[in-house]
């Protein structure tokens, strides 16, 4: 079992990279849990999927209904069952969408239940791929613990690199139990390839791969087509194979 979290600044293509990785890994007969942990992202769409209910909806249900339930209801069991019921079960992978962030009020107890539940769910998979916002919300709250690989996706922009640096610092600050941190450069052109490599070195970031700028992705995106349908000959998809090797997954 391995947990890979993919993060980065919005617009750098982290969701596209996550979707391509999942697409590639599904063919390998591993059981995968894909978690969309970014309220702004659209991993289901990138996978050509539609998910209607989120983990946050179940959490809110519990908060709304807790006083109306029989007093001795086991809330962990209730929440676990509801999460199982919204887990989208597809061929080769399951998909869980975390949904909107917490509202006002206290989530301590509910999040504590979620921690236990997520620990149990995650153990059932060979591989867990998490698409998460740069703030690493669910990791920092400990709802998902013990991430093995943290992958920061960034484009060639300076701000993208700064985000990578910030995430690296955040990881240290939060004292997350992350084993490795990698960076994947996305939308790489022959012109900026060398320079990006040098930047990464200066920042002390290990490069897991360089995904070339791919006409296919841009076209799929505009057409609203699922990236999981990208042809195997697409240059971006080919690079996934290298990344998977590098990540050891």
């Amino acid at each position: 079992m391995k947990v890979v979290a993919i993060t980065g600044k919005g617009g750098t293509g982290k969701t596209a990279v996550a979707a391509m990785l999942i697409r590639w890994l599904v063919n390998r007969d591993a059981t995968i849990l894909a978690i969309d942990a970014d309220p702004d992202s659209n991993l289901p769409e990138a996978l050509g999927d539609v998910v209607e209910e989120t983990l946050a909806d179940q959490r809110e249900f519990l908060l709304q209904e807790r006083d109306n339930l029989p007093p001795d209801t086991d809330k962990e069991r209730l929440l676990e069952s509801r999460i199982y019921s919204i887990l989208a079960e597809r061929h080769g992978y399951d998909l869980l969408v975390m949904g909107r962030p917490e509202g006002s009020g206290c989530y301590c107890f509910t999040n504590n239940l979620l921690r236990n539940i997520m620990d149990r769910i995650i153990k059932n998979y060979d591989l867990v791929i998490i698409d998460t916002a740069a703030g690493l919300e669910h990791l920092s709250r400990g709802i998902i613990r013990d991430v093995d690989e943290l992958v920061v996706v960034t484009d060639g922009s300076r701000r993208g690199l700064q985000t990578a640096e910030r995430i690296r610092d955040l990881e240290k600050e939060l004292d997350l139990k992350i084993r490795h941190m990698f960076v994947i450069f996305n939308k790489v052109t022959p012109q900026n390839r060398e320079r990006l490599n040098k930047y990464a070195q200066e920042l002390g970031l290990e490069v897991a791969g360089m995904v070339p700028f791919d006409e296919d992705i841009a076209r799929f995106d505009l057409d609203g087509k699922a990236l999981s349908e990208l042809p195997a000959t697409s240059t971006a998809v080919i690079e996934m194979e290298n990344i998977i090797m590098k990540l050891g997954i």
Partner: protein
Amino acid sequence: MADEFPFEISPMFEGERVRKDDMYVELAGPKSKGFELVSAVDIDEMEDGKFTLIGPDISDMEEGGRYPLAMIYRIAGELVEPDLEAIVERRNHDFQNYIQGVMHLNQRYDVWLRINKDSIAKGLNSFEDIAKATMMLFRNELPFIEKIDATYITDIEKVEDELAKAMERYAARDERTRNLHDEDVDTFYGCSLCQSFAPTSVCVITPDRIALCGAINWFDGRAAAKVDPEGPQFPIEKGELLDEIGGEYSGVNEVAQKLSGDEYNRIKIHSFFEFPHTSCGCFEVVGFYMPEVDGIGWVDRDYTGMAPNGLAFSTMAGQTGGGKQVIGFLGVGINYFRSPKFIQADGGWNRVVWMPKFLKDKVLADIPADIVDKVATEEDAQDLDTLKEFLKEKDHPVVKNWGADEEEEEDEESTGTSTAMPVFGMPDPAMLQNIPPMIGGGGGIKITLKNAKVSIDKIILSSKK
């Protein structure tokens, strides 16, 4: 021990999930019907170990299909009594999850099971194996069960008939659990989840007092402490009852002293003024004393307006939170309004004078009939003057105390017990120490008045002898 069964049995299979791709059949669950029920019966009424199936067996089921399932266990024994039914029933979940290839989720009428294809391949073809293994575990793990039998039903009509009967039993049970009170148990539960930001806060959870956050009731505390006794929820032995009305117990006091790092050593769980429960910051509602009417108002997190004392929830929350005993303010969970012991040391509902309409409506059914119309909302009163008028007009119980104002205040000062100080009242210096950060610690005080209409007849400052 499990050679007689076509599957392995071990706690290590708990948490094992049966994915749709690997599933042979799905039973009960959100898209079908079913339930689990344990009932206590007379020992002569039953034959030990008997299994009855009504409806199709696993071998009659289609691969990938979904079927209803009811699991009814009857238990008997010298020590078996109806009060144990719920506790025993809860274990069906654990035991069935010990069975390799069987996934059991949820409880009561929400149960949801799946059986793995692999298990079928290994020879599991009858519910009898599952029922017998479960009964064996019940008897091994809960030795007070002397006899047990099981009836499983997969016929939809019969499931529906029996579910209707089961619902009555669940309702009767809920009635009993709702009637569980502090005096009926030996153990309360504590929670230290909030100590990360309120290091001296000790949350005491009793049958008559839900946690401040509103999320953890006594049963939740019990369940969590059982799973992980070293976790954030832990048992507190009640110890000796020191004050019945205030709700003071020697065991609670000991824990309070230890976990607050000697910050305080007494807690009265049903008191507003004397050794009140600490407030962490998570509370759903904050109570505030208004000396002008000698009554207590409550405002919830979602109410964005001002309370009659001129303060908003956020201001009072900032003042109350942090894990100190703050005289004059108290954080509570909404369900505490439904407690028969609700601030009973200080008059209970007879002391409540104001709450936002939304909050009042939420707990309306639990407000005593003789007081319900006398509690003002923002529609009746927005400030102290309109509140006073309202209370007078409705003849609220606090009005009786108004005449005796002067005497009472002096009384309290001389005995050194504390009443609350509103922020705009004239502070007794001793009391100021109890008013938290908003005013600032150490030397000097800072008073910020915004949009204030203050009229003062006389201010007398004198050093306290």
